[in-house]
């Protein structure tokens, strides 16, 4: 049997590029505006990446499209109207992963800054695993608040890793060395004021941890290889990242949060001990007042969410075509 069909000839750069896109990349990609160059047309490629967020308590799912531009390009030769050069599917995939990572970074950076705000009174001391990595800060602050001032040589004898963390306290202006020999580390007025306000050693340490974390999280992680905070930050970012996409606090179960973390940090290097028991990790985040329990569900704090909501406008987000309502 013979069938006849009329189809458009590939004679326009946009159509030639789109043909290439559908054949090699997929229908989530699209050609952007055509740029005319000497002997060819350059057509950058954009992509819509779907992301779904579920509120398990209300059984509501929302699908969003993240619109990433310039994830690849197609060059079409003017004389022959044939493809001259095009991004490979592998490179396109890598570029999409990078763009997703940039979205993740926006939320993560904003969340870390917010968690460092003293008014939120986050109990960082409850994050036991992370706490282990920042023992030098904990011990030093406790000693300074008890007016036990160590000398520079005392600290140096403990080790460089110890001294490096003490330097962070100096950088944020909460400790300093005296000028006279032997040089001693003393608390600054800033630390004394904070202690006077908090009236509690643990709360003062929590506030200082918050400041160190919000200022030096990436430095601690990359420069000083203190990675114990990473699982906590990832879990919090995955939860609040989904919540700001959804537009309100969501209630999810533990396994869903675990999936969200995996989905949100797809392609990111795995932190050490990622398998650190999830129920413990979540309980500690709740104890630290970063997340909350809502019966059998996990939810977030309204004040953190409201502060973070501004980040939503920075995301290349549009609500997708399908929203299912249970």
């Amino acid at each position, binding site marked *: 049997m013979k069938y*006849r069909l*009329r189809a458009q*000839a590939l004679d326009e750069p946009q159509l030639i590029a789109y043909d290439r896109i559908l054949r090699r990349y997929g*229908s989530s*990609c699209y050609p952007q505006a055509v740029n005319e160059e000497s002997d060819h047309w350059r057509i950058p490629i954009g992509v819509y990446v779907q992301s779904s967020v579920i509120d398990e308590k209300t059984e509501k799912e929302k699908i969003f499209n993240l619109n990433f531009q310039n*994830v690849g390009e197609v060059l079409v030769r003017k004389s022959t109207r044939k493809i001259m050069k095009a991004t490979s599917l592998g490179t396109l995939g890598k570029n*999409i992963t990078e763009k997703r990572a940039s979205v993740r970074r926006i939320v993560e950076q904003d969340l870390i800054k917010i968690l460092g705000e003293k008014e939120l009174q986050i109990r960082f001391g409850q994050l036991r695993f992370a706490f282990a990595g920042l023992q030098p800060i904990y011990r030093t602050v406790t000693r300074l608040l008890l007016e036990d001032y160590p000398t520079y040589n005392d600290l140096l004898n403990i080790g460089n890793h110890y001294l490096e963390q003490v330097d962070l306290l100096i950088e944020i202006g909460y400790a300093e060395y005296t000028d006279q020999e032997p040089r001693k580390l003393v608390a600054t007025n800033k630390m004394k004021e904070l202690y006077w306000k908090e009236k509690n050693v643990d709360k003062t340490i929590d506030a200082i941890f918050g400041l160190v974390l919000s200022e030096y999280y990436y430095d601690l992680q990359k420069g000083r290889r203190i990675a114990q905070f990473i699982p906590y930050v990832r879990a919090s970012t995955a939860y609040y990242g989904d919540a700001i996409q959804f537009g309100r606090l969501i209630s999810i179960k533990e396994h869903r949060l675990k999936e969200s973390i995996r989905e949100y940090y797809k392609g990111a290097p795995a932190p050490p001990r990622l398998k650190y028991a999830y129920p413990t990790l979540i309980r500690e985040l709740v104890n630290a007042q970063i997340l909350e329990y809502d019966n059998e569900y996990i939810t977030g704090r309204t004040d953190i969410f409201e502060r973070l909501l501004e980040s939503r406008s920075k995301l290349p987000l549009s609500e997708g075509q*399908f929203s299912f309502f249970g």
Partner: protein
Amino acid sequence: MIALPKMIGASGNDCIVATVTMVCMYWRLTKGNLAWHLPSDFESQEWANLFENGRKYVRMSGMPFNNIKLFLRKLNLPLSVELEFLEDTYGLRNLINENIPPIVLYDHTYFMKNVRGPGHAVILVDQTQEMLVSVNPSLEPKFYHKLAKIDFEESWKMNHNATIIIYPKTYKLEVTKIPTKTLMSYFKEEGTI
């Protein structure tokens, strides 16, 4: 109306795999005399595997057409597949009339909200004067979705009228390529008509 033997639900980039599987099932049912090595029972594990295997060809950017070709070739089905940018909806009408269910790629977000979004694959199974009837895998369990022709044409145009045609190897498809710019369109641009 083209009656598909089984509906398959899918969301996200899996819509193409679902539509391709449904059309393969349709041809298995209607062209049973061809050399099929898949059973006629669409509830069987083989068909479930076909859909699941197809999903492996889906990438973050969607399912490339070349992967659909590769997927069907590996399965050794007696079907051919083509990607064409049809001239207009008359082409779709002719395919439906010939009982060849076309898979159209159109911008569903634009269709619904006039906002650009990713290409979405549906199967057209029927038409009226003003409507096209589609089987939309994302609308499980309802599946059937009537598309107003005028709005559909606009959102299909966003994807350059892209259409995937799966047909038995015993058929012959002759495609006449029409220049995207005709003499009339030049006159229209100049404002002489």
